């Protein structure tokens, strides 16, 4: 600090704490709500302090059924979410690594064209082309399948650009040394390129995992069979129950469970997360 003004430092801390409190407020409310029985919610009334039905609610939604018209337990939907999130994450990382590798380390006709085709995917987020994409997936008979959940989402210009950037920063001499050492393209890819891109891959993994886990509209459209329900989209189905019968405690518990994994990833891998965010905006 340039000058020492204790009251300013104090004000800074106070503001930050206030900000953190405001940001955490909805989660606090949800946590409290999930510890009361469904009957505690009513017109003009919502509990503001913890009740004693927490264990029961959480146990029910986790292991029996999420309720509100969704008969599957949360753990099962979590599994689906995990499959989808990991499928999208691995898929994106693998195909982006491969295509960035092709674009940076090989010369072939139409290289620029390929680059532009990949770039175009930036301009076509799924929300924008939702109806025709649904039709394409329906035509391919991929509704209600893990393939349908993941495959349409795994083309990623961002990841390809990120890896391209990362590969371009690898000194040319390293590639030459590897060639003199007798490493062909695959050996180079696995022995040199992948280990050198480790942190980038990990950082991207964090970002993509969050992206995959939080998919909402797409699974909502293409899954009608509850064997493929993912946790985030099930909330929507739980909310479509007629107003009066909503079991708020269960919805809140499910909501908290649905946000727990990605939030844990962000907090647990904060460094990688920040790196991933900053990198993918370059």
């Amino acid at each position, binding site marked *: 600090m340039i000058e020492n003004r204790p009251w300013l430092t104090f004000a800074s801390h106070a503001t930050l704490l206030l900000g953190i409190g405001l940001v955490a407020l909805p989660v606090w409310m949800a946590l409290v709500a999930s510890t009361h029985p469904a009957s505690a919610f009513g017109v003009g009334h919502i509990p503001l302090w913890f009740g004693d039905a927490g264990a029961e609610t959480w146990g029910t939604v986790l292991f029996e059924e999420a309720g509100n018209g969704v008969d599957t337990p949360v753990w099962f939907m979590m599994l689906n979410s995990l499959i989808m999130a990991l499928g999208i994450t691995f898929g994106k990382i693998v195909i982006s690594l491969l295509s960035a590798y092709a674009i940076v380390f090989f010369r072939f006709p139409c290289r620029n064209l390929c680059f532009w085709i990949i770039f175009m995917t930036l301009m076509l987020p799924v929300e924008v082309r939702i109806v025709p994409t649904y039709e394409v997936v329906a035509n391919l008979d991929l509704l209600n399948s893990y393939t349908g959940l993941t495959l349409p989402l795994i083309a990623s210009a961002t990841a390809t650009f990120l890896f391209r950037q990362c590969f371009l920063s690898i*000194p040319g001499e390293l590639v030459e*040394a590897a060639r*003199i050492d*007798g490493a062909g393209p695959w050996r180079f890819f696995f022995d040199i390129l992948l280990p*050198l891109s480790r942190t980038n891959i990990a950082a991207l993994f964090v970002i993509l995992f969050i992206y995959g886990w939080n998919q909402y509209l797409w699974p909502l459209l293409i899954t009608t069979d509850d064997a493929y329900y993912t946790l985030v989209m099930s909330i929507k189905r739980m909310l479509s129950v007629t107003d009066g019968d909503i079991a708020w405690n269960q919805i809140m518990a499910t909501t908290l469970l649905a946000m727990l994994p990605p939030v844990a990833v962000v907090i647990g891998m904060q460094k990688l997360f920040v790196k991933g965010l900053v990198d993918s905006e370059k």
Partner: protein
Amino acid sequence: MTDVILEKVGKTYPNGYQAIPSVDLSIEEGEFIVLVGPSGCGKSTLLRMVAGLESISTGELRIRGERMNEKEPAERDIAMVFQNYALYPHMSVYDNMAYGLKNRGIAKNLIEEKVSDVAKMLGLTELLQRKPRQLSGGQRQRVAMGRAMVRDPKVFLFDEPLSNLDAKLRVQMRVEIRQLQRKLGTTTLYVTHDQVEAMTLADRLVVLNKGKAEQIGTPMDLYNKPATPFVAAFIGSPSMNLIDATLTEQGVKISEALTLPLSHQHRGDIVWGIRPEHLEVSDEQNGDFALRIQAVESLGAETLIHGKIETESANGESMVVRLSGPHLPDVNSLMWLTAPMSHWHLFDAKTQQRL
């Protein structure tokens, strides 16, 4: 036995730039050849064509009689040491040295043996488990050499391997490289822009200028009989004094007032040269010309005197004189010099060839 032959080897880059018009060179087995020249003259290009990292546009490269133009770098049985070492940052020193052997499918115990032999030779045994970033510059340099040596290749290629080291370490490594090469007897092609490095290391030197080999020869050949003014200026420090002159019946006419007597059948514009260390201090009676002193650099063991040849007209030619031991002449005073004819170098101004 001739080991490496470059026959009319030329390089034109895809963008149309002709970096090397045509170079002929044959290297004997065990010879230490240094490619030297100013930055951008095409040294790396030539070396990389030998390595197989750049395609050869024209001509042919043969190693031990076998045409190499179409061969992959790994098939040429060469090893290269890069300027920035190009060590694999995620591998230990051991793995860096072993990588090329592993890729060739050599048995594990044999690899271990070779790596530990080379490590011993280079004093790297203690460092085998470290990562490159935990090493000093000199140690990295050694690992890069070790990586080249374990493979026991036919040819070593070096691209300015010492230019990232500080001056003292550079001298030390220079000596070490020369000793190792002698001991191993491996044919070596070494690129540098530093003429001192070139002179001290080379069996033979190739002086490159704008992609052309100006002269190929032993360091003493090049010092004593430079083929062109470019080589004359490039080899030796401080550079040879080179002065535009005219060869007439009377001799070398440097200016209206100054002609150094010489009988030579050539006539016309020439470049006259003499090395700073070959000029001798004299007096008004015996001297060939006088120098108006402009600056004196005392280095202890020797003294460099910068000045201009004194003439009636305003601007005489600049000259440097190198005297051994300390001297302290006054700036602006006159110093009479003789230029012994046996040390003259004459070049045709038009063809730039030695007369």
